[in-house]
């Protein structure tokens, strides 16, 4: 599904990604952990070209993103993204948030988009909020809408960038629940998170990033109980 080959990313003179290599299979769930500033978000954002790549190769579902001939908008429709800050469209109701992209990009009718949207809101448990504005929802509800919005494009891959770190602790659970469900249904997922519980339970593989490289890559069991790298151990000691 994803093949990343020696990915480099520079902001000016600051090299943030220093050669990332990684593969993600279909239906696999990969969690990315690591200290602040290690490049986790940047890595994720390179996967749907929100940042353009400085060097290396990224292939998503057969599309080479670094190839100039690739239509990025098409690739993006196959890659859903969920942000830490939700980024719902505040001037649109919940259902309009979910309907917008299918209507404008996939050019489906408003009725069809609404039907699909309602099913997705049902799925994330927010059928009753369809006509409210984002500002009227709690953070957890907003994040669930954001997931529904991404799913509306029927992506083959979902990227999550710390989807629960802007939430009050009591609201974290409801969002993780939706994500677990999604994993169970076989969605391919890359999740940057600090929720080690989720990683342990759901991830097929955990990547530990530090200073722009993947320091360690292992099953959750292995990485949380007996990591190979000293750095990983140190980091987990601080966080757990």
């Amino acid at each position, binding site marked *: 599904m994803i093949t990343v080959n020696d990915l480099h990313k520079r902001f000016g003179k600051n090299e943030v990604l220093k050669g990332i290599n990684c593969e993600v299979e279909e239906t696999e769930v990969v969690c990315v952990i690591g200290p602040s500033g290690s490049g986790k978000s940047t890595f994720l954002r390179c996967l*749907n070209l*929100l940042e353009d790549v400085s060097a290396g190769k990224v292939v998503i579902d057969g599309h080479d993103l670094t190839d100039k001939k690739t239509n990025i*908008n*098409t690739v*993006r*429709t196959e*890659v*859903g*993204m969920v*942000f830490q*800050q939700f*980024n*719902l*469209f*505040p*001037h649109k109701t919940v259902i309009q948030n979910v309907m*917008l*992209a299918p209507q*404008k*990009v996939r050019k489906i009718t408003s009725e069809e988009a609404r039907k699909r949207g309602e099913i997705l809101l049902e799925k994330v448990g927010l059928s009753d909020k369809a006509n409210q504005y984002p500002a009227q929802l709690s953070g957890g509800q907003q994040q669930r809408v*954001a997931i529904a*919005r*991404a799913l509306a*494009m029927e992506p083959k891959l979902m990227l999550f960038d710390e989807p629960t770190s802007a939430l009050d602790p009591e609201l974290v659970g409801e969002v993780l629940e939706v994500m677990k469900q999604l994993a169970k249904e076989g969605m391919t997922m890359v999740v940057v998170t600090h929720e080690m519980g989720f990683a342990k339970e759901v991830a097929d593989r955990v990547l530990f990033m530090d200073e722009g490289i993947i320091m360690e890559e292992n099953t959750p069991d292995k990485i949380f109980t007996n990591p190979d790298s000293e750095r990983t151990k140190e980091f987990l000691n601080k966080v757990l």
Partner: protein
Amino acid sequence: MDAIGRILEFDWFRVFEFLPELGKGLYYTLLISIVGLLIGFVLGAIFGLGRISKNKFLFVLASIYVEVVRGTPVLVQAIWIFFALPIIIQYNFDPIVAGIIVIAINSGAYIAEVVRGSVDSIDKGQIEAGRSLGLTKNQTMRYIIWPQAFKRMIPPLGNQFIISIKDTSLLSVILVPELMFQGRLIVSNQFIAVEIYTAVALFYLAITLTLSLILRLIERRLNY
């Protein structure tokens, strides 16, 4: 105090005699500010987007326009447009047309900054959310950024309306028959400076305070 006694002695009722003239002035004040601002908004939208555009030429053009207009006093612009420009282009403007041009060009530069600022103020996350859903740049601009930016523009646009109304008073110097001009005309023939200039000031105050009140109501409604 002496001065207070003197204030009461003025012939305040004579102001009523000149209400028709002042009313005519008010009409032109409002006409010119409204028409000027409508054109100014079009200029502002074009040049404001020019200032965030990646097109070098558009950017430079928009920047020169904005900097020159914001860097010179409105009075200088008015006098230049009314007394110098006609010599250059060999075409004379009617004072009212010249007045509208002055307000349009001037407010356009300030509105350009409002447009730029409002678009810039929309959280970058909104663009990213739009793009990551597969919307094109233009679609993201049209469906996501612009509607939000426009809402944020309303208060500063209302403010610009108030500023432009005040600016029209300068047009008295280029003979636009607006409120201040009418006042000056009456005084120059009737010698009742205190009464008329006070009345003129109160007229402006009434308009601007009413507008800011309306503006505040709108702002409150916008923050539902």
